[in-house]
């Protein structure tokens, strides 16, 4: 039987990594990821895992060690946040282009500067073109479930891409929540054994990773990465269905909350999705047909599915917990609006930037967004395409 426990987000990530028992974990501590690695190092010290833990001197080394380990044939994992992810940057891209299915926990934190340790999505959103699969988690249960599935998704033969599983710094990483754990054996059976088809340590068949790749072949290798990403949605679907049989919990590319009859739909990722659900409950009591489309998988972006859900709405608002400086709006907004461009009916889609540097967003503020959508539907006019929530003028 599984167990019901109370864990913080960081503890959850450590606990599920204990169950996965990766061959190698290389990480450097950074707030608010620290407790994940700290707790995992206790598991290593207590002999609860057989993982080779590499205590590196920087995140750049952490990702490098993961790449070396994965190329050698090991299942490798790491965890980081914000500036740590930024320091990894170069190697993050190399992991994806070497097609090494490393799983990385990213505890979302605002990128400097000015220096800030609290939540926003500027770190992982900045890495959205790095070739990694990105899965956003709303709560501790989702961290647990997403990490188990991430291993299978990334290591799928048709995919072979690294996967980032993110959750909101402090809001989730440091808050204790109830969650259900599966038995160790069930998790280990589910993830199975990582089998690299081209292990670097096979001395009978020496191969080369990461050679120089110029104008003659680099383009072809990028095309392969595009192809691999295109395979991901169906793999996520299949792994999700299999995971449902194991856990009873359903996972797809995204989550729909009361969207079926919704006039007004918000699009959000991360912990705020939970706040939006509460706002929806209250608005529905007032007779307002509010709904939520929660982004679970941001890379690859599930265009067709998202259009299917949103096209019936009267108006849509996208909540972005990061800014894309100089762009028309936040990263999720740009994707959603672009996806809907192909629809016959022109649908008003507006954008709110919120929660930068860990600023809270309240139920009342979210209700305000729905009320604005109502106004837009009534008047047919969008006063401001991109706005901020909770910002002092």
């Amino acid at each position, binding site marked *: 039987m599984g167990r019901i426990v109370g864990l913080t987000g960081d503890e959850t990530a450590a606990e599920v990594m204990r169950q996965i028992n990766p061959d190698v974990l290389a990480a450097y501590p950074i707030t608010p990821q620290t407790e994940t690695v700290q707790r995992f190092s206790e598991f290593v010290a207590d002999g609860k895992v057989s993982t080779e833990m590499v205590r590196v001197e920087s995140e750049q080394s952490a990702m490098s060690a993961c790449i070396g380990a994965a190329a050698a044939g090991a299942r490798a994992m790491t965890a980081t946040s914000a500036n740590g992810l930024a320091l990894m940057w170069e190697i993050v891209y190399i992991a994806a282009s070497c*097609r090494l299915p490393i799983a990385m926990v990213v505890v979302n934190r605002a990128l400097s500067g000015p220096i800030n340790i609290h939540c926003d999505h500027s770190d992982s959103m900045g890495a959205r073109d790095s070739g990694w699969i990105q899965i956003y988690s709303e709560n501790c249960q989702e961290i647990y479930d997403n990490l188990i599935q991430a291993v299978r998704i990334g290591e799928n033969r048709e995919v072979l891409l690294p996967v980032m599983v993110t959750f909101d710094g402090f809001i989730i990483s440091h808050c204790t929540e109830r969650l259900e754990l599966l038995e160790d054996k069930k998790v280990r059976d589910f993830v199975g054994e990582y089998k690299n088809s*081209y292990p670097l340590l096979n001395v009978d*068949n020496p*191969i*080369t*990773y*990461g050679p120089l790749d110029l104008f003659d*072949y680099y383009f072809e*290798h990028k095309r392969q990465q595009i192809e691999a990403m295109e395979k991901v949605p169906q793999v996520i679907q299949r792994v999700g269905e299999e995971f449902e049989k194991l856990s009873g919990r359903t996972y797809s590319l995204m989550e729909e909350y009361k969207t079926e009859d919704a006039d007004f739909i918000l699009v959000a990722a991360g912990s705020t999705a939970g706040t939006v659900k509460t706002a929806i409950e209250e608005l529905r009591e007032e007779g307002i047909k509010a709904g939520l489309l929660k982004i679970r998988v941001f890379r690859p972006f599930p265009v067709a599915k998202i259009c299917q859900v949103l096209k019936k709405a009267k108006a849509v608002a996208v909540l972005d917990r990061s800014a894309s400086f100089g762009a028309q709006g936040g990263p999720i907004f740009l994707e959603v609006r672009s996806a809907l461009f192909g629809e016959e009916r022109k649908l008003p889609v507006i954008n709110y930037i919120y929660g930068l540097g860990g600023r809270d967003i309240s139920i009342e503020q979210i209700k305000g967004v729905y009320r604005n959508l109502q106004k837009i539907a009534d008047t047919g006019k969008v006063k401001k395409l991109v706005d901020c929530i909770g910002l002092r003028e």
Partner: protein
Amino acid sequence: MKEKGWKEIPIGGLILKAGNAEEYKTGDWRTFRPVRDEEKCTNCLICWIYCPDSSIIVEDGKVKGIRYDYCKGCGICATECPVEAIKMVEESEFRKKGGE
């Protein structure tokens, strides 16, 4: 070598066979071509010793020619030749004069 399409090559830029640098003809990097004067050559083999790309063809202790598929035209052979039997000729000049 005919270049392959994206569906035909190993993923991730992997090279799945060892020792395949031989298949990669690096001779087209060359700007200057070493041209050997057979009459001046004393077969001392100093060029063969110094060539960083094993591009001097030697048979039975005698220089038989230069492997232009791999010679990058660095000019070390011409510099080291004690009897000035090797001259570096600009590739474009060589071709203009009807060379290969």
